[in-house]
């Protein structure tokens, strides 16, 4: 596989200086519809970026291309300096990329703990182990820690299908934080959360270790501008503005589009 070709050494040397994410000319077509057109985007390591844009702007498609859920029609994706454009999703995840899904993609038939444990196992060794984890298993401990971090301790044995909507959203976040993520894509993590849950989420995001960069798609300006240090505006599959939160908020063009654009 192509994935094998890059040696560990080259990966490590690339990591030191390279950008967390570099998109060049990224384009994605769905038939005749251009969901993404010529996207160029650079995110520094540790940077926290909000992506805003009305429904159908192409934000989720952007995430799908970055993680490899869909291949892009054209363009390149570099992750920590390494060209991952043709890597399968799991190889990108093993390099420190994580994501949440806008519509929760969880294992409804498994408990909260097994969901998080699977996430921890996915980015560690012995994924094929036929031996059950011991009580003092390190991954099990980190799964417990994540469950606590997203305030799901009381529901750890609950089947995920029986969780409330808000709890499922919290679990989405926990799955994306398993292992040692270096760069996370959050797709509308706050959508549908209660004000309390929203506050807890902002707290989780602001307390992430500073080397951990992320992109957050968020309609709620309050949440987005509180956790992000830079903002990218998308419309009709294109980036049309990048800047600091304050600049974006006061931008006349943005206000016209965003407030008039019927986002939801």
């Amino acid at each position, binding site marked *: 596989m192509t994935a094998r070709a890059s040696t560990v050494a080259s990966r490590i040397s690339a990591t030191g200086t390279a950008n967390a994410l570099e998109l060049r000319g990224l384009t994605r077509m769905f038939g005749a519809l251009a969901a993404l057109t010529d996207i160029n985007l650079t995110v520094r390591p540790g940077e926290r970026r909000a992506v805003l844009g009305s429904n159908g702007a192409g934000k989720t498609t952007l995430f799908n291309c970055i*993680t490899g859920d869909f291949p892009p029609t054209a363009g390149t994706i570099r992750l920590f300096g390494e060209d991952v454009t043709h890597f399968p*999703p*799991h190889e990108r995840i*093993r390099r420190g990329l994580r994501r949440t899904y806008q519509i929760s993609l969880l294992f409804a038939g498994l*408990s909260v703990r097994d969901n998080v444990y699977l*996430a921890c196992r996915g*980015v560690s060794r012995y994924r094929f182990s*036929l031996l059950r984890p011991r*009580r003092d298993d390190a991954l099990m401990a980190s799964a417990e820690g994540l469950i606590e971090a997203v305030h799901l301790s009381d529901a750890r*044995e609950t089947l995920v299908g029986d969780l409330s909507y808000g709890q499922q959203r919290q679990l989405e976040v926990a799955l994306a934080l398993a292992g040692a993520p270096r760069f996370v894509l959050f797709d509308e993590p706050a959508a549908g959360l209660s004000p309390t849950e929203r506050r807890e989420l902002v707290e989780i995001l602001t307390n992430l270790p500073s080397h951990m960069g992320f992109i957050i798609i968020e309609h709620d300006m309050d949440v987005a501008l509180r956790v992000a240090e830079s903002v990218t505006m998308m419309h009709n599959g294109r980036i049309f503005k990048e800047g600091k939160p304050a600049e974006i908020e006061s931008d006349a063009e943005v206000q016209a589009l965003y407030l008039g654009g019927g986002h939801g």
Partner: protein
Amino acid sequence: MAVTDHGTGQGAEGRRAPAHGTWIESIPPAVWALGAVLLLMPALANDFVLYQIFGWTFILGMIGLSLMFLAGYGGMVSLVQMSVAGMAGYMVAIFGSSAIETISLGWPWYLSVPVAILIAVAFGTVAGALAVRTEGIYTIMITLAIASAFFYFTRQNYVIFNGFSGFNGVLPPQLFGVDWRQAVPFYYLTLFWAVLSYLAVLYVRRAPFGLALQGVRDNPRRMRALGFNVTAHRIAAYSLAAVIAAIAGILLTWQSAQISPGTAGVGPVIDILIIAVVGGLRHPIGPFIGALIYVVLSTFAIDILTGLGLAGERFRLLIGLGFLVIVFFSPDGVLGLWEKWRASGRRDPLTGEDRGEDRGGNREGGA
């Protein structure tokens, strides 16, 4: 394995039992009773029942179990498991001894048996590698195609597989001075391997590999986004299932002392699917229940039919009808019926028909 089994603090175990108490204490009394009955069976049953009914049930149950493992935990309905068993049977005949001395190499069992299992597992793995890129009905079709190809190949190839007649005189080794084709030893031999495979599947489903396999079944896209190589995981499941089918295939060959193309023909291939579905795909005990029903029906249906003045060859009709009835009343097989019955017993012991709908609704809510 048993050592690590003891210390698991996760999932269903955690839900069921508090931290204290050993795993032995957590075994329900019904299982103890069943275990005792199975162990003491030779004192209760005659040789025919031990050898033909139970021996055959354990063997077919194991092949059904290998299908159940793939279908129940992996969401992949594979019809190639009977062919994997057939391959293992052929390989012990070819590498070990049989009446066909021009072909059989006459290796001792400690070489021929492992080699047979290895080749059968390789076959199951390759079949899996071809099948995992397909979904649903296409998985069934491609594995059925491989199974048919295996059947026709063995029937037409005389150099290795001895064509139409196959191999006879394929006997188990006289290990420990025991004739393993005697009813009681054969009963314990098949019981041992059936219980071991059953426990192995129960164990693996809560191990990282088994959990991940269920994750792949429910949500392959998310599994990729968690760092799992979904394709590799599916293929590995085929390998693991093939180990069980291969052991069963060798036992099957020893039981009848022969292997021929018909052993893994399209009929038996479908029978294994019927066994697994009738028993239930949700729990590894299902295929053994299905196998017992199948064996009892196919053994005694002829007597029943001729007793009723019908043609004895129609026993397949009876099996087919039984299959229809069970699947019609319970898509989850006999296991599903059992669960329904237990659920209804808990809830509403007095009322009649109404209970059915109520029960269905509640069961779905919990599933």
